[in-house]
């Protein structure tokens, strides 16, 4: 399939967009520094119809959607929930003690997971009570992604964690510095990307990792899988590289649709929605 990158109109806020999530028909974008940036659209791949919302936070780091339910998390231990598709939010106090929370996700069993500064890992089965789970690390826990084998978590100290039930297992990854985002591909391969062009894959559930070449030595923010199994990596300087062999090799996608860092991406329809600095948006499809 031949794809190209289309530049979309910027978000009106022109702020940093750090997270995007999609649910088949809609996209939610979250971010901001010191302020709450949240927008959602029913026609995200055209870049139209992004409606601004506000959850009462001071900088959002993740957004998750399931039906009419929308969850966000971010700086200062902020977690908020919407039951009307993101129109209004209620703050949920999870006892994060002011930590920055980088991800909120629901696993296949329905449990909500929240990760954050200095090994903060919490789980909730009812969306109201959040209990601590021992992450066995004091590293900051970065983005969490759910998968068939359980939640995956990238850490700020070059690691990747795998959650099995209530047990957190450290994979054998020994990267250097901050790892940003993990992924389990459609074929069950684990991947993770981070600073200095570091991208790794593991075909044995984290027992061993090989470094792959994402065609840049720059900062990598996100690895994501498209609907057809294509693996995409995005990062600084508008870098987008894609793999059609389950993350073994990558080809760079040249474009001028986004400058600066692409902070996040998520599969949408048969392509990839990407967000970044100054409210920049683009669609690869």
């Amino acid at each position, binding site marked *: 399939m031949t794809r190209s990158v289309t530049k979309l109109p910027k978000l009106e806020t022109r702020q940093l967009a750090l997270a995007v999530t999609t649910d088949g028909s809609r996209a939610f974008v979250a*971010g901001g520094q010191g302020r709450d940036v949240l927008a959602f659209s029913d026609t995200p791949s055209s870049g139209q119809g992004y409606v601004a919302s506000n959850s009462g936070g001071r900088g959002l780091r993740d957004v998750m959607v399931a039906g009419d339910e929308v969850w966000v998390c971010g700086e200062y231990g902020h977690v908020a929930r919407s039951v009307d598709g993101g129109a209004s939010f209620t703050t949920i106090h999870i006892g994060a003690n002011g930590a920055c929370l980088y991800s909120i996700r629901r696993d296949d069993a329905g449990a909500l997971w929240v990760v954050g500064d200095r090994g903060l890992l919490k789980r909730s089965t009812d969306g109201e009570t959040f209990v601590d789970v021992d992450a066995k690390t004091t590293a900051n826990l970065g983005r969490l992604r759910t998968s068939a084998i359980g939640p995956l978590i990238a850490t700020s100290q070059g690691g990747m964690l795998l959650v099995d039930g209530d047990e957190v297992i450290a994979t054998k990854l020994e990267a250097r510095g901050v790892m940003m985002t993990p992924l389990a591909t459609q074929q069950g391969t684990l991947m993770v990307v981070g600073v200095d062009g570091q991208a790794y894959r593991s075909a044995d559930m984290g027992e061993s990792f090989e470094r792959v070449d994402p065609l840049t030595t720059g*900062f990598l923010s996100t690895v994501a899988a498209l609907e057809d199994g294509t693996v995409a990596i995005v990062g*600084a300087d508008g870098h987008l590289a894609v793999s059609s062999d389950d993350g073994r090799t990558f080809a760079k996608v040249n474009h001028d649709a986004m400058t600066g860092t692409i902070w996040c991406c998520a599969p949408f329809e048969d392509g990839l929605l990407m967000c970044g600095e100054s409210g920049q948006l683009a669609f690869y499809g």
Partner: protein
Amino acid sequence: MTPFLILGNPENRRITMFADALERRGHPAPEIIAHQTLLEEGPAVLAQVKGPRLVKLDSFGENDVVTRALLRRGLPRARQEGIRIYDALDEPIRRGLISSPMQSFFGFTDYLESLRPFLERDDFKMMNPITGILELFDKRVTSRRYASLGIPVPEFIDPATPDALRVMMRERGWSSCFVKLACSSSASCLAVVRRRETADGDRFSLMTTIARRPHGWFNSLRIQRVDREEDVDVILTFLLRDGAQVERHVPKAKLARRFMDCRVLVVDEEPAFTVVRTSTHPITNLHLGGVRGDLDALRRVVPPDVWAEAMEACVSVARAHGCFYVGVDLMFERGFRGFRVIEANAFGDLLPNLTREGLDVFEWEIDRFSRR
């Protein structure tokens, strides 16, 4: 009132000024334990301190004996890691000599780790935690960390050699970049690399304070231009070999026709004090000819949303390290349309002659920390 325990170099004005501030705020005299004592007698000295205590772990700089003790302590690891070593440790270090900042950092790391079990106790409340202080001492770590948090920083690269640096600059279309020793301070070990396209290919030159003299590498405190390609190579090799943070030179905004940046001191998750620094060249450090600028004039030209976002970014820096106070160097881009965090300093609170609501910087810190 819980008394303070200060670890530092007692003769240094950081300590004397802080002790004076404590007295002015009605606190009991602090207990001061010298780095030298701890280095010579061991961290068990701390076990004799009765709690509770509020703890300020301060700079080890500007004391030759302590500097050499840390270098000595870092020597084994420096040898192991193959970096340039400094082993003339029985004699005072010549003024301005760049001994081996990375070796010093290794020693400092080992020293702080030895203190950790004695400081991380329930009846001690530290202003800045050991982990945060150590993180703040490596510019490569902080830059990447901030980038991962969405805090705007200059784009960085990781070249191992001058040739690799040239290639990377060319590939990215950078006309200029900063090369800073990762564990140095106060612009003492940096170079600004400039790339100029000519008919014969790219020409590279440097602006730096680093100078090679018979006794080694010195920080001359004088910014000079280096044009000869061989000299450029020698200086870059020196910097890159010792571990350097290399980042794009993002053009700084100008205030009253002078380049400017800011030192923002974050205290208790609030941007408490801001010093504007201006210079005729992009290196604005006050000891290199920079002068303090007009904060009110700056506030008038920075759009309010950009200012608010920049201040929040500075707070995020302090939060990232779990520090009660951090000095954040912040620059605004041309036209004040954006900003970048350049670096942050664990001991960045020595800002004399600044007041807020009648309190100087140390008084402000003391009041805020005592109330926590």
